[in-house]
């Protein structure tokens, strides 16, 4: 009986203490997928997110308040994502870090009704960059439209600055996300005068022998733009290599350009020359990553093994950093840490000139442009790691602006 009473007292104390912390903390709702179809991303991205938040907290938080990122894994399922959103709202989250395209779609209306900002870096729809139409959705990273424009710009530079009469193959996953860049690519065909042929890979995307032979031996393009997900980027690398198409003429969208894809394709030697588009800096040569390593060293722990997968880990850091920056803007504007979701929404729209030592592109988010400009950087697989081959750039901004105004 006595031990029971002790337990009860302990539980009460615990409940009280967590409540006391909850009143002071700034809460972020973090959706993750560590077990669903995109788990290869989540297991690196989410630890990156938490590490950056821990770094901010170890320096005293924002305006004296600690930040608490409440992670909920929704396994890439929509009902679970709805439940996690309501839970985050109950905990008083000032912003939601959405994860997954269907989940972003499903929560868009709810976020707008509740006036809570949600970020959708690398997924959701490109049209959400238009802040007039989607006031509470922030892509904060290059959408598939910006990536498509970036890819074409890159190809143009590689092929000597003129695309007239050139041939480009677009190899894509046959789902809405895979088809989303098509309007931009078609507009660019008209503008630049190149020939484009599309090659769809049906889900689950592990079988593309026919498409690749078609590309390499029949169409014989000057460049291949690939937009694949999950296991299929590695399959595309393997297959293109097998039929002898040079990988230095392949550029992949952001979800086919990680260390994991290269390793799954058979290692760096196989993938030598392959290009990948990035919306966050790649590699470990950034001051913020060194600070995270130092933070772990101070605690007497080795740096987490997730840091080795720099593409996804750095994306997690980027997302967390932009969130913290928005919160910081909100705290500064309000003069207290008692901020509302609406304050954070306005905080996002003030982000400018925040680059985190090159890991984050020079974003400029405002009330019309929630994408921040659509910056990309291109890396090449070379000698066992990703090597930077361009600086941050944004391509065809006037064309994209025109398309966004028309809502796609």
């Amino acid at each position: 009986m006595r031990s029971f009473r002790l337990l009860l007292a302990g539980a009460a104390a615990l409940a009280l203490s967590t409540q006391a912390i909850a009143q002071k903390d700034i809460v972020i709702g973090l959706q993750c997928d560590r077990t669903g179809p995109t788990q290869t991303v989540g297991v690196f991205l989410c630890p990156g997110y938490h590490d950056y938040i821990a770094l901010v907290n170890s320096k005293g938080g924002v305006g004296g308040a600690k930040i608490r990122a409440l992670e909920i894994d929704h396994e890439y399922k929509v009902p679970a994502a709805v439940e996690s959103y309501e839970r985050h709202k109950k905990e008083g989250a000032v912003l939601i870090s959405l994860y997954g395209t269907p989940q972003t779609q499903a929560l868009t209306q709810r976020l707008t009704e509740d006036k809570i900002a949600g970020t959708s870096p690398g997924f959701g729809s490109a049209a959400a960059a238009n802040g007039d139409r989607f006031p509470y959705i922030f892509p904060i990273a290059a959408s598939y439209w910006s990536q498509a424009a970036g890819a074409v710009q890159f190809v143009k530079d590689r092929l000597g600055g003129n695309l007239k009469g050139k041939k480009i193959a677009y190899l894509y996953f046959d789902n809405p996300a895979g088809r989303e860049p098509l309007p931009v690519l078609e507009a660019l065909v008209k503008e630049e005068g190149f020939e484009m042929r599309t090659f769809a890979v049906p889900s689950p995307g592990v079988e593309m022998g026919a498409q690749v032979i078609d590309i390499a031996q029949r169409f014989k393009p000057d460049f291949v733009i690939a937009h694949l997900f999950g296991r299929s980027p590695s399959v595309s690398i393997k297959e293109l290599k097998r039929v002898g198409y040079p990988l230095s003429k392949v550029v992949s969208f952001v979800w086919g350009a990680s260390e994991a894809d290269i390793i799954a394709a058979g290692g760096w030697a196989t993938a030598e020359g392959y290009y990948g588009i990035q919306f966050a800096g790649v590699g470990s040569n950034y001051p913020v990553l060194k600070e995270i390593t130092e933070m772990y060293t101070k605690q007497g722990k080795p740096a987490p093994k997730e840091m080795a997968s720099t593409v996804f880990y750095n994306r997690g850091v980027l997302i967390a950093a932009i969130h913290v920056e928005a919160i910081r803007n909100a705290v500064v504007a309000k003069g207290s840490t008692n901020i509302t979701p609406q304050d954070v929404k306005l905080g996002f729209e003030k982000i400018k000139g925040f680059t985190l030592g090159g890991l984050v592109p020079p974003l400029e988010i405002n009330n019309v442009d929630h994408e921040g400009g659509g910056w990309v950087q291109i890396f090449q697989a070379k000698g066992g790691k990703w090597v930077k081959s361009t600086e941050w750039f944004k391509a065809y901004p006037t064309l994209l602006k025109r398309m966004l105004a028309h809502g796609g």
Partner: protein
Amino acid sequence: MFHRESGYYKTSYAADMALYPLPVARWTVAAIALAMCIAPFVLHEYYVSIINLILVATVGALGLNILVGYTGQISIGHAAFMSVGAYTAANLAVRLDLPFWLTLPAGGLMAAAIGAIVGIPSLRIKGLYLAIATLAGQLIIEWTINHVPWISGGAQASIEVPRPTLFGTQLKTQFQLYWFLLFFAVLAIVGTLNLVRSRIGRAFIAIRDQDIAAEIIGINIFRYKLIAFAISSFYAGVTGVLYTYYLGIANYEQFQIVTSIDYLAMIIIGGLGSVLGSILGAIFVTLLPIVIRLGMENWGTLLFSAADINNLIPNLRLILFGGLIILFLVLEPEGLNRLWRNIRSYFRVWPFSY
């Protein structure tokens, strides 16, 4: 549980066939109904949202149970029929500006029509072969929605739908949507309870138990199998419409094969061929991840570090979920419903069990 069953004499056929033959059952139903009416007023919005998800899942699980549990035909294309309902309703709501009380039955009927077509092979093939045929149905429907912009509304394959309007007010909050969803969930439950004890329901059960014998006693197997597919798909279509209005968007990516498997898991865990089982299964599958997470958040820190817990929760959920399905299949193949009946019959004679 704690009541006497003797002393109630049935003097007419109607009394014998009543849904609730004992007064205590009527009282139980009344108590549950009262609790459901009070619940949204006293519970936090978050818990109301969980109940809302359960209500939608219940409708879908009931539909699948009519086909799999009562008629004995396997289907792993259930989620595709939901997407048929969702896109039908979304297109009608956006293009023709129709209200929900027209789009909802329209979505259900369209799904029923497609479901009946997909069900045609069930006349010749059974078991695993039928499972593959319905899987083909799932993939064909997905492909069609994905590739026909006239249905999907463009490259994103998602259609934003205005929330349902009732008597001039738009149902937006979880509280308002609760009543909307509760109404249709109750309708589905009552409908299924009555369906399975009707002529059609008895025909379904006869087909499940032995289809050749059923044919010999004069049941038109072709007709009843297709009716089973149509009714089941109607429920699925309605589920899709409810999701569309609940989320404010129709998007086929949430109705992929994983969702079909989830619904199969619901009725297997809940109990094949039982209405209560469908409800219990929907509750169980929706709540399990939430309960595991709450438990780990509160007590997990005693054993693991915070970083490990974030990694552990989702994986533990998968392990427990898989383990429980195996456990149910081995120990209690008839699911939660049978478990509940066992408990009830134990207490029926307790403490004088001999």
